């Protein structure tokens, strides 16, 4: 596809249920990021995948959150036993190549998944 694709665009779930959010990055992009955007807040870094390297999971808020990236392409963010405070927009971004200084990677964002936990 032309851009980063995220699905679903909206997800409503009940407290305690598990959810999976999907991100399909731009073809050929080696780096992939997940962020959480709460209402009125900036973006909160969750996890960063770079090629075949071990992911940087330093932003995951609890062990209920996990993510994987299969075949260096599609990524899934899983939230187990969802809580109301998990309600937010979850954004995925990808970068075309791995600059050795990750902060210089220009990130291309998907439209996000809006998660509502009732």
């Amino acid at each position: 596809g032309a851009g980063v694709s995220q699905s679903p665009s909206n997800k409503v779930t009940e407290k305690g249920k598990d959810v999976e959010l999907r991100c399909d990055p731009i073809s050929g992009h080696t780096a992939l990021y997940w962020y959480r955007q709460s209402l009125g807040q900036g973006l909160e870094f969750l996890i960063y995948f770079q090629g075949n390297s071990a992911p940087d999971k330093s932003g995951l808020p609890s062990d209920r959150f996990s993510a994987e990236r299969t075949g260096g392409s599609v990524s899934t963010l899983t939230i187990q036993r969802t809580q109301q405070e998990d309600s937010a927009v979850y954004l995925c971004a990808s970068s075309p190549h791995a600059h050795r200084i990750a902060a210089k990677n220009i990130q291309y964002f998907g439209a996000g998944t809006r998660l509502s936990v009732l």
Partner: protein
Amino acid sequence: AQSVTQPDIHITVSEGASLELRCNYSYGATPYLFWYVQSPGQGLQLLLKYFSGDTLVQGIKGFEAEFKRSQSSFNLRKPSVHWSDAAEYFCAVGGKDSNYQLIWGAGTKLIIKP
């Protein structure tokens, strides 16, 4: 601690007027600075970035930003706004101190008056 402050939650300007969005950061190491724009229901799009060199950087859509190290600021400017500029604008900083991840401001929502 690393942080980015965008002091204005909302800004309203008339179409055709000039615009300045403020961004202040707290960061120990050499900062890499970004401005992104998010239109409603869309992801974020890079407007411009500063890594080094000339402190006045030009971006897309007629935007520019100036890095002022002494003031720890990276303000975004546009000489004449268009209705299509209505969106949310995010400033971000990254570098060694944040393990090269970006620290984001809370955003400024720009409203354009006709």
